[in-house]
């Protein structure tokens, strides 16, 4: 656990401290997470809220795909590539750093792993995410998963329930530059670019 920075903090203070320490990006940080995925039960609108860690917010959803749908799921990699190519800020609402989609087999079944690293607590913008998935086509990849609610477009609680039931919390998360948001990284890179341009002009 992050006891180095907060040696006397109990789990409750620890969870609350996550946000307060977000600017301490100079020290790499690691945090071990209890089995439940949180230190202290805090409910959001659709269920427990997961803490922000040195590796930001995120989730790992693992679900079995319907038999024979592997190619269909894989094809959606291309679909998303095109969507983002055409409209790069399509997924802006999700405040993402990274997405990783993985397919793997366990005995005769194929599983889909959707891992996302992002900057907002997922519970906060669940409805916006559902609306976005509808528009961007991410939806259809979910429709190839077993147990995905058929009425998900109009039933946000059912969608949230599916995601939560298939979410496997990390037990360790590490950040080389902990608690830094994608917006902050982009701001820093913009500043760097501005300085470089300024230095060029001064030659």
């Amino acid at each position, binding site marked *: 656990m992050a006891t180095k920075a907060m040696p006397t903090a109990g789990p409750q203070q620890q969870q609350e401290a996550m*946000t*307060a320490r*977000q600017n301490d990006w100079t020290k790499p940080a690691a945090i071990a997470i209890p089995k439940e995925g949180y230190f202290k039960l*805090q*409910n*959001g*609108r*659709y269920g427990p809220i997961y803490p922000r860690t040195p590796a930001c917010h995120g989730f790992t959803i693992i679900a079995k795909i319907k038999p024979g749908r592997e190619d269909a799921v894989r094809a959606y990699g291309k679909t998303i590539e095109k969507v983002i190519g055409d409209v790069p800020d399509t997924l802006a*609402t999700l405040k993402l750093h990274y997405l990783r989609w993985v397919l793997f087999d366990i005995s005769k079944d194929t599983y889909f792993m959707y891992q996302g690293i992002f900057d907002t607590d997922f519970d*906060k*913008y669940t*409805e*916006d995410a559902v*609306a*976005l998935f509808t528009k961007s086509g991410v939806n259809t990849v979910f429709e190839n998963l077993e147990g995905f609610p058929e*009425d998900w*477009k*109009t*039933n*946000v*609680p059912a969608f949230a329930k599916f995601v939560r039931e298939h979410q496997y919390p990390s037990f360790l998360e590490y950040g080389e530059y902990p608690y830094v*948001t994608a*917006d902050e990284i982009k701001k820093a890179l913009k500043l760097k670019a501005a300085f470089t341009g300024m230095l060029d002009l001064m030659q």
Partner: protein
Amino acid sequence: MSILQQSSISVDLARRTEQPSSLDFEDIQHFLMSRPPARAARYEFLTFGSATGGRAWLTGLIDKVGTAKAVGQSVADSRWVTIGLTWNGLQALGLDDASLATFPEEFRQGMAARADILGLTGANHPDHWVGRLASPNLHAIAILFARDVAERERCRQEHERYVAQCDGVELLSSLDLEAIPPFDYAHEHFGYRDRLSQPVIEGTGVEPTPGSGSPLKPGEFFLGYPDEEGPAAGMPRPKILSQNGSYVAYLRMEEHVGAFRDFLREHGESPEQQELMAAKVMGRWRSGAPLVLAPEKDDAELGADPQRTNDFNYGSMDPYGYACPLGAHIRRMNPRDTTQNIQRRKMIRRGGTYGPPLPEGAPEDGQERGIAAFVGCASLVRQFEFAMNVWANWPNFHELENERDPIFGTQDGTFDMTIPKRPIRKKITGLSAFTTIRGGAYFFLPGIRALRYLASLGDRH
């Protein structure tokens, strides 16, 4: 958020020239649709000791409930009645378990059980609420708007006699409300002009003022109609209950006028600086003029002009918050173009001020005063709870890190307020609470036919 229904209210009615057939104005309670010219109000919170008594009470009141159609037409009326029921109230009236289970989870749980989600912690927690509003015995609310205090008193007595005749029906608590002077514009105890932006519903014939966004589909506020995403789903059953009903979240919010004025004095040496500070926490001058359009000094004429006072955005006109801070009340409660799907987060506000005004210059007198308001919507979890959880009380909203709504959020001296300013921003640390939530509840406002259905439940068993 203030109320009482002053003259601006009847403008809504006057502008409603056509009533397309799509909205059933005869079945919808008037409450979220029109604003009668009331200067006094009374909320009565009731419990049903027996199902038959509760149904008897309902039966006798239904004809007095103002419909959207009736309230829009008569200017002679002097009182307007609305009825809301909690989920426990629906159960107490004898609604069967299968129907009860079709109501959304947040409504079934009730506001008190959802307090942590809403950010209602510390002094705002239901443990400290008044009027027995956190009790599972809270079953119904009768909302009375009256043209004046005398009419309210007449209605109070009449209702008192009526309740006494209904077996097991008891008053848990009540709250009297009165508009505060001056009466020529709606404002609350801190002195801010109120009721400046209200969503407009498609099919009511009302034209949105510039900057208010396009009219919203009726399903955002009334069950049984398409919403912004298409046909609405997850409706209560039987179908009659899902036609023309709405949910409302009630909040009784005390305003600490003395503490607020102390804060202004602490952060502003001159009256002008104090007014600017008042504008910075709200996002508007007390006149109603928005900081985005009047960043340096007040413009009372702009504040009073509905054609101009909402005609602004944040994304291109004030992206960094130099005019209106990112964490100011109006920027949190309606981020306009700087959030996604804003059309799905709109709410209709109703309510009014209660308690005596604190005269300018007078010390805090310890009397409770504030706003007792209703937020109307079709989905409490998507609209009201989102606003509370994300906009009002999420410390990292807009990447602010450690702030909550300076006026409406739960404040305990540990949160800040950042006021962007060139060259260096001003940061107020340890903001104190200017408001305290003293009570709240979730109510269902059924359509008129649904009220009749509920009143007749016993006849079928």
